[in-house]
C-alpha cells in the first residue's frame, strides 16, 4: 500500500475478529517498524511486551480493563508499551557511534570530545537523573515508535487501537520492570468492523491547529493539495458514513454487547 493511503486508512479499530489469530510475522513487522523509528540519542526508549489475549487467564484479563477499554477483550493481541528512561544509559557511547558511522558530523558540530565533555555531562546526564523532566521527551519518542508500529499493522491489513490499561495487574502478570513507565496498550487484530470504521474521524481544520511564521497566523491549506490527498486516499470520506449505526448495532448483537 502507498504510504499516504496507509495513513489515510488508519482508524482506531475497536471491534476485532475475536476468533482470528494474528500471524506472528505481522507482529514482528510492527515491532521492526517501531525499532526503526526516529529516537533521540539513538535510545530505544520504547519497550514492549506482546501478549496473546487467549494466553492471559480470565481473571488477569478482567483486571486489565479500564472503564473505557472493553475492547481489550476483543483484540487477540495486546502490545503493552512502556517508556524506559534507563535507555539514557549508554547514550554517550551511542552518540559517538553515530559520529563514527557518519550520521553525526563535525560539519554540524559533533565530535567524540563534544559528546564526552559537553552533551553527556551537561544535557543527557542531568536528564537521565531527572525523570519528571525527561519523561516528556521519552514519552514523545515512544509515541513516534508506536505510531510506526500502528501504520505497519494497517499496511498488513490489521486493525489497531491504542488504549489505556491498568498498570498494576499488567506489571504483576507480565513481570514488568519497576522502572518502566506505562504508556499504552496497542490492540491488534483483524477488524470485525469495516476497515474504514465508518469514515475518517472528525478533526479540526488545519488552520485552527497549525500556524505559519508565528502563532496566530493560520497555516492555510492549498485546495489543490487537498484534492491530491483525496486522490491518494490520505483524505477519505469523513465519519459518519450512512450505514455506521446499523453496523455498530449488528456488531453489538454479534458480540452480545449493549446497544
Amino acid at each position, binding site marked *: 500500500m502507498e504510504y499516504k493511503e496507509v495513513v489515510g486508512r488508519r482508524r482506531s479499530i475497536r471491534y476485532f475478529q475475536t476468533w482470528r489469530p494474528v500471524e506472528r510475522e505481522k507482529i514482528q513487522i510492527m515491532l521492526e517498524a517501531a525499532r526503526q523509528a526516529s529516537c533521540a540519542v539513538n535510545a530505544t526508549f520504547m519497550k514492549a511486551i506482546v501478549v496473546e489475549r487467549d494466553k492471559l487467564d480470565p481473571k488477569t484479563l478482567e483486571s486489565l480493563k479500564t472503564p473505557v477499554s*472493553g475492547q481489550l*477483550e476483543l483484540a487477540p493481541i495486546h502490545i503493552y508499551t512502556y517508556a524506559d528512561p534507563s535507555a539514557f544509559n549508554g547514550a554517550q557511547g551511542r552518540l559517538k557511534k553515530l559520529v563514527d558511522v557518519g550520521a553525526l558530523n563535525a560539519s554540524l558540530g559533533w565530535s567524540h570530545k563534544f559528546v564526552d565533555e559537553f552533551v553527556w555531562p551537561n544535557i543527557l546526564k542531568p536528564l537521565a537523573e531527572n525523570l519528571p523532566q525527561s519523561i516528556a521527551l521519552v514519552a514523545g519518542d515512544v509515541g513516534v515508535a508506536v505510531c510506526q508500529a500502528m501504520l505497519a499493522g494497517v499496511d498488513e491489513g490489521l486493525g489497531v487501537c491504542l488504549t489505556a490499561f491498568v498498570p498494576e495487574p499488567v506489571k504483576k502478570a507480565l513481570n514488568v520492570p519497576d522502572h518502566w513507565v506505562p504508556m499504552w496498550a496497542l490492540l491488534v487484530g483483524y477488524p470485525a468492523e469495516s476497515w474504514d470504521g465508518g469514515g475518517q474521524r472528525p478533526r479540526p481544520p488545519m488552520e485552527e491547529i497549525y500556524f505559519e511564521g508565528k502563532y496566530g497566523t493560520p497555516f492555510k491549506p492549498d485546495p489543490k493539495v487537498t484534492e491530491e490527498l483525496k486522490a491518494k486516499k490520505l483524505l477519505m470520506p469523513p465519519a459518519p458514513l450512512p450505514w455506521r*449505526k446499523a453496523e455498530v448495532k449488528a456488531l453489538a448483537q454479534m458480540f452480545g454487547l449493549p*446497544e
Partner: protein
Amino acid sequence: MSDLKAPSENYSSVQTWYKGLREQSGVNPASDLSRLKVLEEFCRYAQLDPDEVVKACLLEKEGRETRISIKGRKRVAQMISDFQASGEGLSPRERAYRGNTIRSFLIHNGILLQAGMQL
C-alpha cells in the same frame, strides 16, 4: 417496590435512555417495547424505580460534584448479572439481552458498566 409510581416512559432516566438510543445508537425505542418491559422487570427485581437505579450508581454529597460510586456501581453490576442469570427457560442470547438492556439504560445515563461479550 412492586409497581412503578408512574408510567416508566415518564421517568427522566428513561427519557435520557430513549434520546441516547435514538440519537447515538440509531435505534428507535418505540419500535420495540421489549426493552422497556425488561427495564420494568429489573426495577421490580431491584425494588427501585428507573431514576433510583441510576442514583444507586452515584455518589451525591452536598457541595460536591456528583460522582460515580465505585461501590454503588459494583452493587448494581452484580444485580444486573443476577437478573440476567435469573431468566429461567431463556436461551443464553435472551438472557444476555436482558442484562445488556439494563446496561444500555445505564450507559446512556452516563454509568458505564462493562460486562464484556455476552455470548
